[in-house]
């Protein structure tokens, strides 16, 4: 794939501060996200992850510091930033009363892409929602809603996508579906900023991981770099017990996990 020669990061955050009343949520946050990479912002509940995402997606104004996306300043060039991004918020932001297809067509019309109907059908197919496309979203499962939500974010091919806790509240199968989708996004060259409170999610997906704690980034690096922060591994012999996840998938079958993933990868080559 043709990588742009521009080496400027897709997202640059420097000295970001934000407080609500007397509560200092962000106390000087700095990080860069390279183009086409998956960056995970890890932190416990209330660490300020959502606040960072809201500032980057022009929904909130920072008290101090700068945030730029795709080379545009989030505060002074908000309209340009909005052209460059899509936000998938913490709660699936889909219209329950409309059908899945109508949700996609709506976003396609709002983004003024050509032939909204064809774009919608293409995405329904890519996210295995074609059969459910005509049904109202209120009948969808949590995983389907999330997939639709992410599909809506892809319309217009924004170079940067924010995913705020994309798997919170999903069952294990739904989580794996969403993970697969996120990996495919990055393979297509989209920059993904992901917030999560699940350590394994960051471990599975992210090229770089930053830990946000008490309003600051306390570490930022690749998984390997973060692992080196602890003493080197020692070899121990432990009995391998199956995890609950192994048991779960052994019992319910994991066809949703591997079957879909394989066919999706095949389908993805034509766009």
């Amino acid at each position, binding site marked *: 794939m043709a990588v742009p020669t521009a080496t400027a990061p897709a997202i640059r955050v420097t000295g970001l501060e934000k407080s609500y009343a007397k509560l200092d949520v962000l106390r000087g946050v700095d990080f860069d996200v390279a183009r086409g990479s998956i960056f995970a912002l890890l932190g416990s509940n209330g660490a300020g992850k959502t606040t960072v995402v*809201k500032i980057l*997606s*022009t*929904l909130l*104004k920072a008290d101090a510091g700068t945030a730029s996306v795709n080379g545009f300043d989030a505060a002074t060039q908000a*309209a340009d930033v*909005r*052209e460059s*991004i*899509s*936000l998938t*918020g*913490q*709660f*699936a*932001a*889909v*219209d*329950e*009363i*409309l059908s899945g297809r*109508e949700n996609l067509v*709506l*976003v396609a*019309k*709002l*983004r*003024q892409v050509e032939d909204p109907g064809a774009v919608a059908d293409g995405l329904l197919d890519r996210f295995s929602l074609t059969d459910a496309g005509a049904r109202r979203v209120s009948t969808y499962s949590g995983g389907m809603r999330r997939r639709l939500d992410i599909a*809506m974010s892809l319309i217009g091919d924004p170079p940067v996508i924010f995913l705020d806790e994309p798997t919170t509240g999903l069952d294990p199968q739904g989580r794996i579906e969403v993970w697969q989708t996120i990996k495919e996004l990055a393979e297509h060259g989209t920059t993904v900023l992901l917030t999560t409170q699940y350590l394994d999610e960051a471990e599975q997906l992210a090229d770089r991981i930053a830990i946000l704690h008490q309003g600051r980034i306390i570490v930022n690096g690749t998984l390997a770099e973060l692992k080196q922060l602890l003493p080197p591994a020692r070899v121990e012999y432990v009995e391998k017990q199956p995890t609950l996840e192994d048991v779960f998938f052994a019992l319910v079958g994991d066809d949703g996990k591997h079957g879909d993933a394989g066919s999706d990868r095949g389908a993805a080559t034509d766009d």
Partner: protein
Amino acid sequence: MTTHFLGGTAALTGRSLRHITRSPDTVITTTIMPIAFMLLFVYVFGGAIDTGSDSYVNYLLPGILLITIASGISYTAFRLFLDMQSGIFERFQSMPIARSSVLWAHVLTSLVANLVSVVVVVLVALLMGFHSGAGVAAWLAVAGILILFTLALTWIAVIPGLTANSVDGASAFSYPLIFLPFISSAFVPTDTMPGAVRAFAENQPVTTIVNTIRDLLTQQPVGSDIWIALAWCVGILVVAYAFAMATYRRKIS
């Protein structure tokens, strides 16, 4: 930017109109209360009310139409509130569309939904014996006044829709608006009311609006009432719009 605004507003209006066609109960429940009032006043109280008019339903309909609109706009606040809560509002705000189109879509939807309710109530009134010899121009004038009144109340409804913390809070503001026609010339002539009540009734917006619509429908000269009625509608509209927009800007910045 204007094409962004128009295209965005059209797409979003289509969305919220679809909400109404998929749950027509919101239009039906909007009309139930005004129709119930109309039945109650025409068939129970009406015989004892001396309005000086030949048919009480003719006298009553203008006020009932205002009550219909006042109860209808609580759904506008409700729909806006749901969007604010559900996260779809943030999605729209983070997209490259004119930000005010999100609000305008709700306003236009409110206008359409209320006009449908008004037509339903007029049809019921016709079944109950309402008749008018008014010509096209008079009906158009009535429609114009009702549209202005709907817009004025809709912009009022936007404020609780944006700021409420609960569903009840989002719709409760409409109760005083529904009550206002009772202390006006909508149900009974104001001249039998005691001094202070009468002074209030004769100088609040509902009375002049009701009198104007009634005069138009009964082919009476409207006199200066129509200008006072229009001034009230436009005045409320401008003030409510300013407050709603200020609230909106505070919300999205």
